[in-house]
Each structure stands twice: as structure tokens, then as C-alpha cells.
């Protein structure tokens, strides 16, 4: 597979690839390589960025195009794609959720925590750059700008469900809200920063006790946006090595219910 083409061979093709100027089999080989090579991914992104300047801006859009587009948008928001939650154990790729062994969780006491005032929820909300490529891509979108406003709006959304996570000693660890469309904002005010080679990982629990990884909070978390699911009944946070894990052998640092 990758043995047929050396790294140098792939590199030589990256300019052409970025311009869609390679054959199908070459494109497939390159795409396979790109999954594991951030340097080459970065080079392709740069070439594409350069190429974007070769085209034209300031052009009017085609007549009637917007009306046609609006007509084809779904009226209802699309269903959250749950198929990725059903995947078996394998190394997670960007944006994928994974399942951890349910047996681990029988020891977890999903304790309720004291209610936190809405004001406390919003205190100290700042944008932080998550430092790991395993995170849900949507988080990256959120963090680049606007998350403060979005988080504020979510925290006062009447359809929200509250999240309160506490340590096994009952100390508050994190709070958050879950919106009906699955968006989950987590405010990690009380989590202690970890060394740079560690990360917090967020897990969601479903009514049938299935547990899935929702993503990473990074080693110094503050506020984060995750792609959750309206059916979640509880959440938990574990400490893991940077990059996260497919299945956790650790006791949760914090856990708690998603209130009705």
C-alpha cells in the first residue's frame, strides 16, 4: 500500500494534488498518506490557499442561485448521524466518537451535584485553543471566534438541559448545557490544569449504558463546544495521555447527570 510510494514520491505530487491535477490512483495514495502526515497536510493546505488567489473574487453570483439554494435546504434540521457511535474499538480519527467498554462504568457513581447559578456558569468564560487533533472539528470552528456569544446564548436557551459534573468527593468540576440539537457547551472552570502531555477527555452516557467519547478538553480547559446528543443522560471526564484514548481504564475525574 504505502510501500509502493516513498514519502519523497508523495511530496513531489503534493503541488499537483492540491490543484486536482493527479490521477485517481495517485489521489487515493496521497489521501491515505495525508491521514498520517500533518506536514504534508499542511503543505497541501498552503498550496490550496495559494491557488485560491489565482481565481477571481468580486464576481456576482449566478442569477436566481440563492433562491434555488434556499428551496433545497431541508426544512427540518438533519438527524444527528449516530452511525459513528456504533463503531468498534479502533484508533479514533478526527471527529469520530468511540465506545469504551461498558464494564468499566459499573463502578461509576453518577452523582448529582448542587445546582450552580446561571451567573456562576458564565463567570470566567474565555476562548481557549484546544491543543489536540482528535477533537471534534466543530469545536475548532467554535473556538476560532464567537464561542463566548454562543455559549452565553446557549446558557439562557429555554430548551437547554443543565449539566453538572462533580468529583467523587462531590466537589464541583464542570458545568454545561445541552441543547436539543445536540450541541453541548461545557464550562470547565474547576478543572485543574494538567501537564502538557495529558488531556481531559469527555465521555457521554446513553440510557442503554453505552458510553462514547465526545472529545477532548485539552490540558488546560476553560470553555468548549462538543457535538453531543439529546439522548445523553450523563457525562464523565477522565484524565488521559495527550491524544485521548479509544477506551479508558481510568476512574472519572468528574461525572454527573444531564438533567431533564
Amino acid at each position, binding site marked *: 500500500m504505502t510501500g509502493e510510494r516513498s514519502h519523497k514520491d508523495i511530496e513531489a505530487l503534493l*503541488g499537483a494534488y492540491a490543484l486536482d491535477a493527479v490521477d485517481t490512483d495517485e489521489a487515493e495514495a496521497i489521501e491515505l498518506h495525508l491521514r498520517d502526515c500533518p506536514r504534508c497536510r499542511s503543505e497541501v493546505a498552503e498550496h490550496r*490557499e495559494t491557488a*485560491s*488567489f489565482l481565481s477571481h473574487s468580486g464576481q456576482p453570483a449566478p442569477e436566481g*442561485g440563492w433562491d434555488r439554494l434556499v428551496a433545497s435546504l431541508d426544512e427540518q434540521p438533519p438527524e444527528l448521524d449516530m452511525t459513528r457511535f456504533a463503531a468498534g474499538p479502533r484508533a479514533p480519527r478526527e471527529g469520530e466518537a468511540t465506545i469504551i467498554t461498558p464494564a468499566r462504568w459499573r463502578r461509576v457513581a453518577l452523582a448529582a451535584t448542587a445546582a450552580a447559578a446561571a451567573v456562576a456558569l458564565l463567570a470566567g468564560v474565555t476562548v481557549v485553543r484546544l491543543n489536540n487533533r482528535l477533537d471534534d472539528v466543530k469545536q475548532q*470552528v467554535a473556538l476560532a471566534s464567537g464561542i463566548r456569544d454562543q455559549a452565553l446564548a446557549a446558557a439562557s436557551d429555554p430548551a437547554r438541559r443543565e449539566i453538572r459534573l462533580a468529583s467523587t468527593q462531590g466537589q464541583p468540576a464542570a458545568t454545561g448545557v445541552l441543547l436539543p440539537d445536540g450541541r453541548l457547551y461545557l464550562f470547565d472552570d474547576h478543572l485543574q490544569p494538567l501537564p502538557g502531555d495529558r488531556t481531559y477527555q469527555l465521555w457521554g452516557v446513553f440510557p442503554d449504558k453505552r458510553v462514547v467519547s465526545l472529545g477532548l478538553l485539552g490540558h488546560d480547559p476553560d470553555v468548549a463546544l462538543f457535538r453531543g446528543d439529546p439522548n445523553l443522560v450523563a457525562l464523565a471526564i477522565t484524565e488521559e495521555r495527550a491524544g485521548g484514548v479509544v477506551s479508558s481504564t481510568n476512574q472519572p475525574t468528574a461525572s454527573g447527570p444531564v438533567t431533564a
Partner: protein
Amino acid sequence: MSPLRELSDTALVLAVSRYRQDALAELYRRHAGAVFALARRVSGEPALAEEAVQEVFLRLWNQPDRFDPDRGSLRSFLLAQAHSRAVDAVRSESSRRRREEADHRRTAEEGYDVEHEVWDLAVAEHVKDALDRLPREERRAIELAYYRGHTYREVAVMLDQPEGTVKSRIRTGLRRLRSELSSAGIGGSE
């Protein structure tokens, strides 16, 4: 909430992910023209270019999380999709033969230059200068690949050059362009 025109592309994509149609409308206003122009230039077919615009923005609506602001601007993300779509559509046997004939003619006539259409005022002169400064062979290889949708192998045949040379010229040319644009202050996301 800020007026939509003041929000960054990334903030608008986040709003799209929350099913805000007005955010999609603003992104359409900003980028649909460029998407259309590129698809039309590569494919030579306005109807196909219109389809490409529809597909690209529909995909943005349904899968906003495919955009990664770390990887580049939303403009380059949308244009890359449109370009790929246009190239796929025209890479058929008959249309390729037509285009190769047209390109052979143009190559033979020499001196064909970048199409003169309306450019963004802030960027146009710098991009034009950067392109003009490219070694001619690098520029030709990039133009034939990008604007005409040829693979590097086809370009090698058309220019009667080794494939390795064409590959290398495309890559070097893109790097050189990036460097030129960057020293002119162009090339950061948003």
C-alpha cells in the same frame, strides 16, 4: 448579535451549524461569485458552474463541521471543492480531447496570459505581479493544471516535458507564488 456583515467567515459557519439561514446567505453573498467564476473558468460551462455553486453551499449547510479554520480560509475551502467538482465533470474523454486541442493551439501561439476578468481590487495587482514574476514554465504548468483541469501527466504531454519536471514546477511555482504574495501582505486567513 453583530450584524452579519461584521462577522468573520468562521463565526458565520458556526451560525450555519446552528441552522441560521441568514448566515448562509451572507456567506453566499461573499463567496458564491468566486466559486461560480472558478467553476466556469475550469469547465467552460456556465450551467455546470451553477450546479457547482449549489452543491458547494448545500454541502456547507449540511456539513459545516467539514470546514477547519486551522487548515485555511473558508474561501480556499469552498474554491477547492468547486475546483475538484469542475475538474471531475470535465475529465471525460471527449471533453478532454476538445480542451487539449484548444490548449495546444494556445500553447503554440505563445504569450497567452491570465484571463482578464474583474479582480478584487485589494489583491489583484499583487497577484498579477506575482504571477508575472513566476518563471514562465512554472506559470504555464500551474495554469494548465489549475485553470484547464489537466493532470500533470497531460500537461507534460502538452508541453513536451518530463512528468517529473512538470510535477516539480507546479510545486515550486506554488511555493514561489505563496512567498511573493506573502511579502505583499496577502495570504493570511480572513
